[in-house]
């Protein structure tokens, strides 16, 4: 019977190989991080995450890396790949066009170990901007129906709702590089997501929260956040539009 056998690419004749340099750091005994090099095979569809997991499987079980969905929807696998923040599962080795692939933990997040970083700060700031509809009747009582919303109204915010909280934007932002209190593009884009939702009535309270000395004003429209976002969220746009409200350009 023609059953599937595992679809692995280990012995395939079309496989090529690259050097994968993984940044290693174990807080128990390392002063600073060091690179370890591995020779890995890849096919044209092999992602950086698959290559790392291949290393973990065959060469060194102890590589610490966060991953789950492997399809760019859970936001686990952000890291610096060849110098830029990217999702490991959404970066094919073939598209990097390089014989050496270097992976490091994301900048601007505390490192737990190797490639895994702490996200608590990002989760906290996300919570701080009140990421939910604000109005009196959010809780359904009896058989109410939906709040009406036209497709055009959905289009006003859907882009920003695509955020997977991967943190790449926060890792790329120049303000984030030195400002540990900055809310960051991820949370600001989410503030805009809710402000722009026609069902929401919480604009003023949200604007108040981000109007802080380390709030929205610390964005200088450097745009790096939008350039690295794997989901097309374009935080830079959201932030400027949001600021448009605060400057009275928009209402």
């Amino acid at each position, binding site marked *: 019977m023609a059953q599937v056998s595992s679809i692995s690419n280990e012995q395939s004749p079309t496989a090529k190989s690259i050097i994968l340099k993984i940044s290693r*750091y174990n*807080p128990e005994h390392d002063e*600073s*991080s060091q690179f370890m090099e591995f020779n890995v095979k890849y096919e044209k569809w092999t992602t950086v995450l698959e290559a790392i997991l291949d290393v973990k499987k065959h060469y060194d079980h102890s590589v610490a890396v966060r991953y789950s969905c492997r399809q760019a929807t859970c936001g686990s696998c952000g890291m610096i790949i060849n*110098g*830029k923040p990217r999702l490991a599962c959404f970066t094919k080795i073939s598209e990097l066009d390089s014989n050496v692939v270097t992976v490091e*933990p*994301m*900048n*601007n*997040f*505390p*490192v737990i170990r190797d490639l895994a*970083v702490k996200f608590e700060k990002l989760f906290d700031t996300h919570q701080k901007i009140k990421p939910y509809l604000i109005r009196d009747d959010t809780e359904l009582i009896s058989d109410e129906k939906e709040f009406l919303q036209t497709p055009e109204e959905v*289009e*006003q*915010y*859907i*882009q*920003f709702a*695509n955020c997977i909280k991967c943190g790449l934007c926060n890792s*790329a932002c*120049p*303000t*984030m*590089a*030195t400002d*540990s209190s900055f809310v960051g593009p991820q949370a600001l884009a989410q503030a805009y997501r809710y402000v*722009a939702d026609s069902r929401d009535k919480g604009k003023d309270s949200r604007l108040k929260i981000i109007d802080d000395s380390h709030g929205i004003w610390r964005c*200088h*429209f*450097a*745009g*790096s956040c*939008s*350039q*690295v*976002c*794997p*989901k*097309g*969220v*374009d935080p*830079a*746009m*959201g932030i*400027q*539009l949001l*600021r*448009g409200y605060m*400057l009275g*350009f*928009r209402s």
Partner: protein
Amino acid sequence: MSKDEHREGIGGMINPRRYGIERVAYLLMRLSGLGLLAYFIGHIYETSNILRGQVGWNEFMEMISTTEGHIIMSIVIAMCVFHTVNGVRVMLGHGGVGVGKPTRPDYPYDPASQNYRHKIGIYSAMVLAAVAMMYGLAVMFGE
């Protein structure tokens, strides 16, 4: 930076190479702002020489009418023009002008805020700055 923060630090903030021209503009904006502030402070001090009367003023004018003085002056002109033009662009951007409209993003995702309008703004700020600098040099050395 320490691992418990792992911030990129000033190096990361300044490094303009990894990202687009927007990041270069960001850096130049800061540098020109600081440069102008430094010049501005100097300028206020400089003009106070007028209180020392004609002699004092002339002494001072001679001091800055050197080649170095002119070069510094022309850099100031460039900074001023870049900072002003880019400043206007950034302000428009901050007000939500020309940053694109929210829509459903389609793969491959090109961020609408990183659009040609703003890129043109940045490049024209640079070109104008260069032109102004040339002009300044021509005027100052042309005598």
